[in-house]
């Protein structure tokens, strides 16, 4: 358990930079999630922390010690891999005890600690099984126990839930989070699944094209995205492109004049709206009142999702809470919608 500091961490392959100047300070006991689309450099960053990839520049400090050029077997990091990576010819108990054996811990203590780690993931009854005799979820919990048994300075999780089915994924991620909190572990998880990221993280880092785009809490990312990429990546959103005409007035490509906040400099811009921030049948004094034709309607259970055409150019996605009983809206219906001016976020530029 220790503080982890990355400073200006960089990785080039040939001329191509996959990670550029990543600087992060992760305090002891924090669960940090690196979130981003595939190829954004999040896994490369994690593998540089584990020591599997030699950085082209920058440094990694763990518990105050510079470990940038230390081989993986001399860093005290515990890694959980997407593909479980259990030793196929060893029993569950032998798998979990392996790291302790490498640390020259005597047999009696080794067995006791392995069993303790297995108890943490509720698999102490299956200690003598071989990995292939277990389900994916069980295998990943063994891998977690194996990483925890060495009492790592930092727990590294590389898309640990991607190979599991939806229900199991939810179960195991809650388990990971609870253990991390119980043990006060510093942990870093890499994922492309935002729901997964939002459930477990103390703090999130959104990465794209090898760079950090935003660091913050769940609320920061969702309500105050730093740029259009973050706004689009975290949560659902509709992007309306157009121009800021004057402070507080946005005109869409289709000619809709919309009231907004935060837009001062006139010029090309895009307005980002969350689908659940828009409501049906707005009061007469609502800032933005519009009519649109439903092009697509789907019943998702807790919400109804509508795709609306507001003008020849403008489309919008709306999520309405499902109140039940009320008449369903169908494709072809015309509805009126609205949202207050402080709901949308305007980003300058078109990109």
């Amino acid at each position: 358990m220790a503080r982890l500091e990355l400073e200006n961490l960089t990785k080039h392959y040939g001329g191509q930079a996959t990670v550029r100047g990543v600087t992060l300070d992760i305090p002891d006991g924090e669960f940090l999630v690196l979130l981003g689309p595939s190829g954004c450099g999040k896994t490369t960053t994690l593998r540089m922390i584990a020591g599997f990839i030699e950085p082209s520049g920058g440094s990694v400090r763990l518990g105050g010690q510079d470990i940038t050029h230390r081989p993986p077997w001399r860093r005290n990091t515990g890694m959980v891999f997407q593909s479980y990576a259990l030793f196929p010819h060893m029993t569950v108990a032998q798998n979990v005890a392996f790291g302790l054996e490498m640390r020259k811990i005597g047999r009696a203590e080794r067995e006791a600690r392995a069993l303790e780690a297995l108890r943490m993931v509720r698999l102490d009854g299956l200690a003598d099984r071989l990995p292939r005799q277990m389900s994916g979820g069980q295998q990943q919990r063994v891998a977690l126990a194996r990483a925890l048994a060495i009492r790592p300075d930092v727990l590294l999780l590389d898309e640990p839930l991607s190979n599991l089915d939806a229900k199991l994924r939810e179960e195991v991620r809650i388990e990971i989070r609870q253990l991390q909190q119980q043990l006060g572990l510093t942990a870093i998880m890499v994922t492309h699944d935002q729901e997964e990221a939002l459930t477990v993280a103390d703090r999130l880092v959104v990465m794209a094209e090898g760079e950090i785009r935003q660091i913050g809490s769940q609320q920061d990312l969702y309500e105050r995205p730093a740029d259009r990429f973050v706004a689009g990546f975290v949560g659902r959103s509709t992007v309306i492109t157009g121009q800021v005409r004057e402070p507080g007035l946005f005109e869409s490509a289709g000619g809709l004049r919309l009231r907004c906040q935060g837009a001062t400099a006139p010029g090309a811009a895009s307005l980002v709206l969350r689908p659940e921030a828009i409501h049906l049948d707005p009061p007469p004094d609502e800032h933005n009142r519009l009519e649109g034709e439903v092009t697509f309607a789907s019943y998702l259970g807790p919400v109804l999702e509508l795709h609306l055409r507001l003008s020849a150019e403008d489309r919008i996605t709306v999520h309405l809470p499902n109140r039940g009983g009320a008449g369903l809206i169908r494709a072809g219906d015309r509805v009126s919608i609205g949202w207050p001016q402080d709901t949308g976020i305007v980003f300058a530029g078109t990109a």
Partner: protein
Amino acid sequence: MAAGVFTGRRARRAALTASAGLGLGFILLPLLLVMWLAFFRQEIPSFPPQGYTLRWFAAVPANRSFASGFLLSVQVSVVATFIGVALAVPASLALVRGRLPLKPVMNTLLMLPLVVPGVVLGAAIYVGELETELATEWPVLGSVTGLIAAHTLIVIPWAVRLVTASLSTLNPVVEEAAKNLGATPWVTFRRVTLPAIRPGLVAGALFGFVTSFGNLEASLFLVGPGQTTLPIAILQYLAWKIDPTVAAVSLLQIVVIAVAMLITDRFVKLSQVV
């Protein structure tokens, strides 16, 4: 209609079984014939047999060149198998895990001894050893060392093929996991990689051994005066006699190989590897 589908399937299965049986029979027929012949009483093999005897088996160890040929063959094949496998493991690691330039070329080169006709291989090694001896005055030609070197070449392709096959089924992430848990590269190899490739290793050693043990063409060029391997001894015997002793020797050879396979199968299920 449904009945038609079933008859079709049954007919197809019958055809498959029949052709497999035919193929198996074709392979086994000469073997069975040789085994049968080994027990014939008459000196010139002819049908029908005039009775059965075991005396040809007694004649085998009594024949000096068979006895010493068998010992030399075992010696050469065992040593060559060990050296070949020891070389094949790092070669396979480099081929599967390493970042080598020209990987396919390397792979093909390592398979070459299997592709080149045995006589050509033997002649080439003969010339090579001759030149080495002329250049260094090291008496490699006709020596057991030279013979072992040639047989090592015969073992390598089998060992490389089977070891790379089992190595590529091992996810490299598993090796990373070991390193992450504190294992040095050597410990990772010993504790994780080696157990995983054991089936390929054992099978590669077996096939290498069997091929080396039965090799005639390459060895013909390389044995020294007064020295013969078992296949050469058989050939020389056949040159002037065709009594069932040869069949008896062949039967013994088949038994040696079958025993090697059975022993191997106890450690590694061959059906999983080949």
